[in-house]
C-alpha cells in the first residue's frame, strides 16, 4: 500500500469527496489559489473552481455561520479555520447553533457540516498558533469531535465526517501533517466516528492519547518495552462521543491509566477520562495525566516550548511512576486495609491436630459451599456471590489484592496466641484465624464484612468449618494458589 503524509491524506479525502458529491464545497481563508496555509486544499481550486473552493474574508464568525446555513439548506460544506487558535470566533455558531439544531427542532432540521482546523504546538508558533482547543468543543453535546493521528485515519475520518448527518469538528494536529507518514488505502473508505483503536497492545498500563501525542506515547511505549514494561496505547480518534467500550476494555485489562494530551491539564479531556475510569471502578492505582501545565499559552522560545509540551520522555517517566505505584509498600498498604469496612465476628472451638493446614483448607471450602453468602463480595452496586473458592497461600499484606481470594485464612501455627480477631481486607468478605492448638483444640475466629454477611451467617459458616475440620478430611493436593468450584 502506498504511503502518504497526513496532509496528503486530508487533501485526497477532500478531492475524492468533492468529485463524488457535488454538494460538497470548501470555504476558508487562503484555501483557493494558495491551497491553504498548510496546503490541505492544494490543487483543488484548479480542479473544482472558485465556486466550490471559496476564499472567505478573514472573519471566522461568518465562515462558521454560512457553513451552518449551507448545511441546513442541504449542501455538504467543509469549512477550514486556519488555526484552531482562531476558532473561538466561530464558537457561537458551533456550540450555540450547529450542535443544537437537530435537538432544538426535534429532528425537523439538521446541520451536516464539517469544520476542519489545525491545532497543536511543537513548531515555535507561540501562543496564538499552537493551542489545543478540544476540551471546549468536546463539552458541547450535539457536536462530534474527531482528532486523527495517522494518515489513514485522517482520510477515513474526514470522509465519515463529511457524510455524517450532524456537525463534525475535525481537529488536525499540524505537526502530524508532514511528520507522520503511513499506509493509506486507495479509494473510498470511512473510519467510523466514535470508535477508538488499539495502536499498541500491552498489559501493564493503558495510555489514552490522540494527535501528535499518540506518536509520542508510542515512542515512549517502545522505550519502556526494552525496560520490561508493556504499555497499551489507545488512539482515541474520536473525542466526542467517546468510545467508552474500547477504553474500559483496555483499562479492565491493564488496570492502570495514563492520559496524555497537549491541552492544559485542568478541566482537560484527561479529567473526563479519569472520571470515566473511576466511575467504572477499573483502576488499581490512581491515574496520571501528562498534559500542558495551566499556562495561558504556549511560549515561542525553544527552551520554554520544549519545557511545557509533553513528549516521549515525560510520558515514559509518568508511565514508570504509574507502573511502580502498585509495587511500593505504601501503595499496597493503602489498599490492603480499609477501616471503613464494618466488621462482625464469631468464635468457635475446634478439635485440630497441630499439623492441620490441609484439613483447614478442606474445611474452609466445605464451609464456603455450605454458606455461600460468606464467599461473596460487597460492592456498592450489589453483593456478588462467587462461583469459586479461591485459595491463596501467598500470605502477607499483599495477598488479597494479588490473590483475588474472597476469604483469607490466617494461621500462625502452634506458637501463635490462643485467640485473635482477623481483619477483612478490601475486596474480600471474610477472614478466618486459627489460634494455637493446645491439647488438640484451637479457637477459630471469623470476621466478616457486615455489609455482605450478617452475624448469623458467620456463625453458620464457623459451625460448618468445625464440622468439616473435625472429620479430618484433608485437601488431597495443595498448590500455592488454587480455584475450587463452589459446587462439589
Amino acid at each position: 500500500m502506498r504511503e502518504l503524509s497526513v496532509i496528503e491524506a486530508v487533501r485526497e479525502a477532500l478531492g475524492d469527496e468533492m468529485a463524488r458529491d457535488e454538494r460538497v464545497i470548501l470555504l476558508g481563508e487562503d484555501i483557493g489559489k494558495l491551497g491553504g496555509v498548510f496546503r490541505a486544499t492544494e490543487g483543488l481550486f484548479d480542479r473544482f473552481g472558485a465556486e466550490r473552493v471559496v476564499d472567505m474574508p478573514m472573519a471566522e464568525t461568518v465562515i462558521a455561520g454560512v457553513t451552518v446555513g449551507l448545511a441546513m439548506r442541504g449542501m455538504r460544506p467543509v469549512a477550514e479555520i486556519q488555526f484552531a487558535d482562531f476558532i473561538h470566533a466561530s464558537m457561537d455558531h458551533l456550540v450555540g447553533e450547529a450542535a443544537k439544531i437537530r435537538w432544538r427542532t426535534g429532528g425537523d432540521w439538521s446541520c451536516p457540516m464539517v469544520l476542519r482546523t489545525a491545532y497543536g504546538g511543537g513548531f515555535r508558533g507561540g501562543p496564538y498558533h499552537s493551542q489545543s482547543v478540544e476540551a471546549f468543543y468536546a463539552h458541547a453535546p450535539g457536536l462530534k469531535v474527531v482528532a486523527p493521528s495517522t494518515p489513514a485515519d485522517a482520510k477515513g475520518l474526514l470522509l465519515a465526517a463529511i457524510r455524517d448527518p450532524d456537525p463534525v469538528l475535525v481537529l488536525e494536529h499540524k505537526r502530524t501533517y508532514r511528520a507522520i507518514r503511513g499506509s493509506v488505502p486507495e479509494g473510498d473508505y470511512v473510519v467510523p466516528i466514535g470508535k477508538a483503536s488499539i495502536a499498541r497492545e500491552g498489559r501493564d498500563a493503558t495510555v489514552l492519547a490522540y494527535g501528535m501525542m499518540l506518536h509520542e506515547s508510542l515512542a515512549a511505549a517502545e522505550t519502556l518495552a526494552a525496560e520490561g514494561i508493556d504499555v497499551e496505547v489507545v488512539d482515541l480518534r474520536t473525542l466526542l462521543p467517546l468510545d467508552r467500550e474500547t477504553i474500559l476494555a483496555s483499562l479492565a485489562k491493564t488496570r492502570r491509566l495514563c492520559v496524555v494530551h497537549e491541552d492544559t491539564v485542568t478541566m482537560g479531556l484527561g479529567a473526563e477520562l479519569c472520571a470515566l475510569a473511576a466511575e467504572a471502578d477499573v483502576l488499581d492505582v490512581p491515574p496520571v495525566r501528562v498534559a500542558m501545565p495551566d499556562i495561558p499559552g504556549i511560549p515561542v522560545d525553544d527552551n520554554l516550548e520544549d519545557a511545557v509540551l509533553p513528549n516521549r520522555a515525560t510520558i515514559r517517566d509518568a508511565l514508570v511512576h504509574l507502573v511502580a505505584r502498585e509495587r511500593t509498600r505504601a501503595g499496597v498498604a493503602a489498599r490492603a486495609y480499609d477501616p471503613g469496612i464494618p466488621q462482625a465476628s464469631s468464635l468457635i472451638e475446634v478439635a485440630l491436630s497441630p499439623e492441620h493446614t490441609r484439613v483447614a483448607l478442606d474445611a474452609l471450602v466445605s464451609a464456603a459451599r455450605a454458606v455461600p453468602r460468606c464467599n461473596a463480595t460487597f460492592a456498592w452496586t450489589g453483593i456478588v456471590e462467587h462461583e469459586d473458592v479461591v485459595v491463596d497461600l501467598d500470605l502477607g499484606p499483599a495477598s488479597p489484592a494479588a490473590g483475588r481470594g474472597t476469604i483469607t485464612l490466617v494461621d500462625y501455627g502452634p506458637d501463635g496466641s490462643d485467640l485473635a480477631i482477623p481483619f477483612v481486607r478490601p475486596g474480600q468478605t471474610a477472614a478466618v484465624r486459627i489460634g494455637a492448638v493446645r491439647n488438640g483444640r484451637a479457637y477459630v475466629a471469623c470476621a466478616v464484612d457486615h455489609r455482605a454477611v450478617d452475624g448469623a451467617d458467620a456463625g453458620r459458616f464457623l459451625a460448618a468449618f468445625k464440622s468439616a475440620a473435625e472429620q479430618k478430611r484433608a485437601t488431597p493436593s495443595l498448590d500455592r494458589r488454587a480455584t475450587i468450584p463452589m459446587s462439589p
Partner: protein
Amino acid sequence: MWRLARAGRAHFAVPCSGHEAIGVGYALALEPGVDWVSPHYRDLAALLVLGMEPRDVMLCFFSRPSDPNARGRQPYAHFGSRRLHVLSQQGPQPNHCSHGVGCAWGSKLLGDGSVSVIAFGDGGAQKGEVHESMNVAAIHQLPCVFVVHRNGWTQSVKRSDQYATETLVARAAGYGIPGISVDGTDVEAMYAAASEAVRRARGGGGPTLIDAQCVRFMPNTSNDDDSRYRDRAEVDALRATGDPLVRARALVDGAFAARVDTENEAIAAEAAEWAEAQPLGDPASVLEHAYA
C-alpha cells in the same frame, strides 16, 4: 398571548404590535414553499402569511412537545419549519443572519432561483454577525434580502446608545449593495420595497438592505417592564399614525375590517384553548435527537 403569559399560563410572550406590516409586506413578496425565511422574532405576521397554522403558533406559545417549531425545547418565538422554508431560530440575536446567507448561497449553487429573506432588529444590527453576513452576501451577490426592523429600542436601550446614525440604510452603500428606506408601518410601501428587492435577488442582482422604520408599542417581551425606561404615554400617542393595523384599516371597508377582526379573534381563541389542552412532554423524550 400577552394576557395569557402575564396570567402565568405560558412561559413567554413576544409582542409584535407595530411590526406587523414589515412581516406581511415581505412575506407577500415571496413565493411560499419556494423562497426561504430567517425571520425576526417579532415576525409572527410573516409566518401566518407563509402558512403557519394558528394552532401551531399556539403550540409554540405553550411550549408543547407537539409544536412543529421547537418541540417544547425552545421558548415561544423561536420559529422554524422545514415545510414552510423557515430556518430554525435561536436565542442569541441575530445569529440567523449568516445562516440565511448560507441558505441563499445554497440557492445560488443549486440554481433553483429561490430567494432568502433575513430579518432582524436594529439592536441586532449592531453585532459583527450582521456586518460579516452582509459583506459575504455582497461579495458573492447572493439572492437575499436583509430586512431590519428599526424600532429604535434594544430592549431598554434607546437608539442613540446603540448607533450614532439616525437610520441604518446608509450601511448598504458600505457593502456596495442597494439600500431602501421604508416606512415599515405602511404595509403597501413595505410590500413594494420587498417586491423590488426580491425581484432583484431572483434576477441575479444580489442582496438589498431594507431599513424599515417602525414602533414597538409593547414591552420587549413578557419579562420586560418598559415603564422603567420610557414614557408609555408617548408610545401610545403614536398609535394613530404608527400602528400598521390602524393604518391598514383605513385602506379597507370598516365592516370588512370588523368581520376580519371577529373571525381572527375566534380562530386565535380556539387555537389557544386547543393548544393549552395538549399534553406536556414525556421526560424520557429529552434525550431524543441527542447523541454522545
